[in-house]
C-alpha cells in the first residue's frame, strides 16, 4: 500500500475521449464529481418545481389547482427528490471532486467503482421519476412509503414499484461511493498529509461514509421486503397474516435518521472551510470539530425511533435521551464556528453570506429538533406543519444554504469561473428572505394544529393568511434559484484566467493547484508541513501561523 498515489511510475496509459462519449466512459473523480453536481442540481430544479405546485395548491383554502391524487404524487416526489436525489448526492459530488485533491491523490481509490456508483445513482433517479409516466401514475405514499400506504392493495400501480426499485439502486450507489470516500483519505494521502492534517471537510466525509455503510443496508433490506410483500406474496408488513407494519418503520428509520446526518455532515465540512477562509484565521478547535463529527455519527445510529414516538411501540426515554445528546456535539461545532470567526478579519463574500445564513437557519432547525425530541411535545407536533417547518429549517435552511455556499466557494476551482458577487448577494438575500417567509409561518400553522400532507384545508382566516405568506416565500425562493442560474450564465461569459487561490486566503490543498486542476490534479505537489499547505505556499511569510 505504500506510496501508491505518488510513485513516479511508468507514464499513465490514457485514451482520452472527448464529447458525450468521454463523459460516458470517464472514471476521473473530477468529471464524476461534476456529473454528480449537475445531475443533482437538475433533480433540485424538478423538486423545486414540485414545491411550487404544492404551495400553489395550498395558497388558499378549498383550491383544486391539482387533483388529490396528483397532489400526493407531487409531495412524494418532492421529498424523494430533495432527500435521495439532491442533498445527499450533492455532497457526494463535491466530495468526489475534493477528496483526492485535499489528500494530494491523483484519483479515488477505486475509480471504476466510483463511476459505477454515479451511473447507478442516475439510473435510480430516472427510475423513480419514470413512474410518473406509468399506468396509475407515480408513487404517492410519501417519501418514506409507510405500509400499508405503499402496499399492493393501496398503491397498486407500477409507479410505487419503480420508486422502490429506483431508491434501492441509489442506496446501493451510496454504499459503493462511501467505500471510496473511506479508503481514499485513509490510504491515498500525499507525503506529509497526515490524518490530523486532513481538512475538516474530508474528515466529515469519513464520518459520513461510516454512517452510510451502517445505515444504507437496512434501507435496501426494507425496500426488498416491501417489494416481496407486493409481488412474492410475502407478509412482512401485513398484520392480517402475522406481519408487522411497525417493522417497516423500524427498518426505514434505522436508515432515515442517520440519513439526516449523511446529508448534513458534509455540509458541516463545507461551512467549516468557508468560515475559516473568510475569517482569515485557522479553524478553531480542529480536533473538537473532527471528534464531534464522529460523535454525531455514532449517536445518530441510536435515535431512529424518535420518529416513531406516536406509535406507542418504542422506548421513549432511551430514544429521547439519545436525541438530546446529539445537541452536545452539534453545539461544539457551532461554538467552534463562532470562535473561528471571533476577532477574524471577516469579509462578506457570497460564500460567507450563505455560511452565516446556514448558521441562523440551522440553529432554528436544531432548537426545534431538541423540542420534538421530547415525547410530550412530539405527540403534539408530529404530523403537523410544525414538523414540516422543523425539518425544512434543518435540511433546507441547513443543507441548501451550505450547498450554495459550496457552489460559490468552489465554483472557481471546479469550472475556472468566479461567480458574480452582485448577483451572488441578490441570490443570498432573496434566498434568506424567501426561505424564512416560507417556513417560519409553518411553525405557527403547526402550533395552530394544521396537519401536514393535507390536500386542502378549511377557510380559517389565520390558516389562509399564513399559507398565503408561505406560498409568497416559495415564489421568492424560485426567483432566487433563477438568479443563481442567471449568475452562472453571466459569469461564464466573463471568463478570465484565475489564480490557484482566487479568494486570497484559502488553505486546503485543492487551492495549491490550478483553477480548474489539471487532469492529474497537481503538476507538482507542494511540501505539506501543516494543516494549511496552500496557505503556506501562497503566504510563506505567514507559514509560522499555520497549525502543525
Amino acid at each position, binding site marked *: 500500500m505504500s506510496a501508491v498515489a505518488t510513485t513516479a511510475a511508468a507514464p499513465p496509459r490514457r485514451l482520452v475521449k472527448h464529447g458525450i462519449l468521454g463523459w460516458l466512459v470517464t472514471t476521473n473523480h473530477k468529471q464524476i464529481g461534476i456529473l454528480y453536481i449537475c445531475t443533482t442540481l437538475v433533480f433540485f430544479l424538478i423538486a423545486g418545481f414540485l414545491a411550487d405546485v404544492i404551495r400553489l395548491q395550498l395558497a388558499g383554502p378549498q383550491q383544486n389547482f391539482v387533483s388529490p391524487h396528483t397532489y400526493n404524487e407531487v409531495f412524494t416526489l418532492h421529498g424523494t427528490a430533495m432527500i435521495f436525489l439532491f442533498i445527499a448526492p450533492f455532497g457526494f459530488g463535491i466530495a468526489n471532486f475534493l477528496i483526492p485533491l485535499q489528500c494530494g491523490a491523483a484519483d479515488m481509490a477505486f475509480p471504476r467503482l466510483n*463511476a459505477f456508483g454515479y451511473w447507478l445513482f442516475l439510473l435510480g433517479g430516472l427510475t423513480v421519476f419514470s413512474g410518473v409516466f406509468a399506468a396509475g401514475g407515480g408513487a404517492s405514499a410519501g417519501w418514506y412509503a409507510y405500509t400499508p400506504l405503499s402496499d399492493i392493495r393501496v398503491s397498486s400501480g407500477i409507479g410505487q414499484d419503480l420508486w422502490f426499485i429506483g431508491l434501492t439502486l441509489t442506496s446501493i450507489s451510496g454504499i459503493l461511493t462511501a467505500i471510496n470516500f473511506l479508503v481514499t483519505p485513509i490510504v491515498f494521502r*500525499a507525503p506529509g498529509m497526515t490524518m490530523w492534517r486532513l481538512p475538516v471537510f474530508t474528515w466529515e466525509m469519513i464520518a459520513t461514509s461510516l454512517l452510510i455503510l451502517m445505515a444504507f443496508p437496512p434501507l435496501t433490506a426494507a425496500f426488498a421486503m416491501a417489494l416481496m410483500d407486493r409481488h412474492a406474496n410475502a407478509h412482512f408488513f401485513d398484520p392480517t397474516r402475522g406481519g408487522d407494519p411497525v417493522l417497516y418503520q423500524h427498518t426505514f428509520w434505522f436508515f432515515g435518521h442517520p440519513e439526516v446526518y449523511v446529508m448534513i455532515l458534509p455540509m458541516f465540512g463545507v461551512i467549516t472551510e468557508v468560515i475559516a477562509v473568510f475569517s482569515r484565521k485557522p479553524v478553531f478547535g480542529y480536533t473538537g470539530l473532527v471528534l464531534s463529527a464522529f460523535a454525531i455519527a455514532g449517536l445518530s445510529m441510536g435515535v431512529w425511533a424518535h420518529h416513531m414516538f406516536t406509535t406507542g411501540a418504542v422506548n421513549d426515554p432511551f430514544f429521547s435521551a439519545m436525541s438530546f445528546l446529539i445537541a452536545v456535539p452539534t453545539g461544539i461545532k457551532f461554538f467552534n464556528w463562532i470562535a473561528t470567526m471571533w476577532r477574524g478579519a471577516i469579509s462578506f463574500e457570497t460564500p460567507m453570506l450563505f455560511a452565516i445564513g446556514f448558521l441562523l437557519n440551522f440553529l432554528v432547525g436544531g432548537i426545534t429538533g431538541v423540542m420534538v425530541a421530547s415525547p410530550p411535545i412530539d405527540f403534539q407536533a408530529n404530523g403537523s406543519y410544525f414538523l414540516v417547518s422543523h425539518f425544512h429549517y434543518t435540511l433546507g435552511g441547513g443543507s441548501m444554504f451550505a450547498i450554495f455556499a459550496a457552489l460559490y466557494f468552489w465554483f472557481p476551482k471546479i469550472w475556472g469561473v468566479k461567480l458574480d458577487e452582485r448577483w451572488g448577494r441578490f441570490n443570498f438575500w432573496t434566498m434568506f428572505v424567501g426561505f424564512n417567509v416560507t417556513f417560519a409561518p409553518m411553525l405557527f400553522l403547526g402550533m395552530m394544529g394544521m396537519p401536514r400532507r393535507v390536500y386542502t384545508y378549511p377557510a380559517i382566516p389565520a390558516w389562509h393568511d399564513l399559507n398565503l405568506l408561505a406560498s409568497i416565500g416559495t415564489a421568492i425562493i424560485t426567483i432566487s434559484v433563477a438568479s443563481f442560474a442567471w449568475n452562472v450564465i453571466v459569469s461564464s461569459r466573463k471568463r478570465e484566467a484565475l489564480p490557484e487561490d482566487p479568494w486570497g486566503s484559502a488553505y486546503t490543498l485543492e487551492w495549491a493547484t490550478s483553477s480548474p486542476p489539471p487532469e492529474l490534479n497537481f503538476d507538482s505537489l507542494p511540501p505539506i508541513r501543516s494543516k494549511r499547505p496552500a496557505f503556506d505556499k501562497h503566504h510563506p511569510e505567514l507559514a509560522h501561523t499555520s497549525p502543525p
Partner: protein
Amino acid sequence: MSIATRIFISSMTFGILVAVAYWWDTREVVGTFLLGLFAVGFAFVVAFLLSIRSKTKLDGDEQRAPAELAGEEIAVVSAESPWPVVLAVCATCMVIGIVLHPMLAVFALAAFLVVIWQLVRESV
C-alpha cells in the same frame, strides 16, 4: 497504532456500548442485534488493520514530507472504461426485470455477468 485503526476501534466500542445500553433499557432483540452487528463489523475491520499493521507504511503518515518527495509528480491514474455505465444499465434492468418481467431480468443477469468478467479482465 494508526488513526484509521483508532477510528474503527472507537466506532466498535461505541457500537458495543449502545447495544448494551439499548438491551439493558429495552430488552428488545432486533434493535440490539442490529446495533451489535455494527460492532462486529467494525471488529472485523480492526482485526484486518491490526493484522496488516507490520506490512503497511503510508506516505501520508510521514509527519514531515521528505524533501525528495515534495514536488514529485503523481503518475498513477485510471483509464477510461466503458464498463461501469454498461454495468449500471444491466443492474437497473435486472432489478426492474425481477419485479416487472422475469425475461428482462434473465437477459440483464447474463449481460451483468459478462460485464463483470470484462471489468475483472480490464482490472488485472
